[in-house]
């Protein structure tokens, strides 16, 4: 029987962690772009757009990420669309992230006093100009800590893609366990790597919150 040293386990986990990081970055960047469009729809003046965006958000927040992954991975091929685990994972996580980010950002936009909207509209700015020059710059300040905090959820969300066969940290841990029969060590190290990835993000979210301290500025 082949024996595996602890370093064998850790190095292979670290190699797989690259894909966790890459998938998180893709999902977060893509989710940011789609989320911005959703935000625009969610607060637009057209009632139909608002309605559609809120249904989208409700659907993605009210159903498990795992189900969304299954629908994309097992469902779409039935329609004749070939989906690789990479594509299914990337697209699903992007859409899922977008729903949450849009809702977080909507809260931040709504925290901006109404007078700002009225002032900018009295300057004959269009809706888009109001957002671009007046509302978003202020909302962004409030949005930074919760957005960074949510990135932790994205990193943890990528663990689910292991179930549809995308080889990232969790899948690698399962594969290594099957070879070494040391689940305690392997899953322990996998958890540690996730912690090392996520903890700086949650910590910086807390620090940013304290630093920007927007919540108590206007009182």
């Amino acid at each position, binding site marked *: 029987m082949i024996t595996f040293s602890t370093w064998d386990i850790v190095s292979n986990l670290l190699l797989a962690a690259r894909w966790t990081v890459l998938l998180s970055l893709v999902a977060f960047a893509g989710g940011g772009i789609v989320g911005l469009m959703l935000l625009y729809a969610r607060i637009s003046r057209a009632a139909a757009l608002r309605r559609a965006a809120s249904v989208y958000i409700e*659907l993605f927040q*009210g*159903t*498990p*990420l*795992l*189900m*969304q992954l*299954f*629908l994309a991975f*097992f*469902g779409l091929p*039935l*329609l*004749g669309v070939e989906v690789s685990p990479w594509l299914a994972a990337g697209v699903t996580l992007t859409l899922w992230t977008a729903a949450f980010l849009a809702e977080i950002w909507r809260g931040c936009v709504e925290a901006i006093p109404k007078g700002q909207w009225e002032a900018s509209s009295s300057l004959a700015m269009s809706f888009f100009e109001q957002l671009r020059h007046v509302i978003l710059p202020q909302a962004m300040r409030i949005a930074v800590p919760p957005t960074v905090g949510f990135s*932790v959820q994205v990193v*943890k*969300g*990528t*663990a*689910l893609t*292991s*179930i549809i066969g995308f080889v990232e940290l*969790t899948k690698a*841990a*399962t594969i290594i*366990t099957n070879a070494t029969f*040391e*689940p*305690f060590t*392997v*899953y*322990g190290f*996998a*958890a540690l790597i*996730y*912690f090392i990835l*996520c*903890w700086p993000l*949650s910590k910086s979210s807390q620090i940013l919150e304290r630093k920007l301290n927007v919540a108590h500025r206007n009182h």
Partner: protein
Amino acid sequence: MKYSFDFGGLLDYAPTILKGIFITVELIVIGGILGVLLGIACAWVRTQGPPWLRPPVAGYVELIRNTPFLIQLFFIFFGLPAAGLSLGEMPAAILTIVINLGAYSCEIIRAGIQATPKGQFEAGASLAMSPFQTFRHVVLVPALQKIWPALSSQMVIVMLGTSVCSQISVEEITFAANFIQSRTFRAFEVYILATLIYLALSVLLRQVLRGVGCLIFPRRRAVR
């Protein structure tokens, strides 16, 4: 390629799905209650508990909040037997949910406790209540009332998260869906149905928690 939907074939598997729903509900009810109790205990330690107990609890909260539920589940189900603690799939799933929800609800409840005015503690002390009595009778309920919406959201998130328990062969909704899918190859229909069930459950859970909130906090008063 044309795909024609056929939901009729799923009817034969109604008992499997119903059993799945039952187990999901069981997971969230047991896990939810025990998890919130653990969260209250941890929040107490982090705000008023003995100082020596605070760092370990803080470490537990950070560790759980920064690792995926799936890894926690695998660690408890596959990893712990190596350390001598062997759990069946259902106890392992419930234990993971309790540990997970405990960490998240600790942070939420702690925020509620810290938002309690200092005068409340002093008022309790001036009535010769012990710190624990003050916490139990004066601080806890208003604190819970303040953070009840956030706690409800977290419970819904945990309920959706239980879909992962199918991976250690807990026979909940996702497990049922996978089982039916492997029998009928009707992936789209099955997963759409399962997704809709989860959606309905999350709406239902929200309503139930709102009702529970009205029961526990009968005096509706303006916060602040």
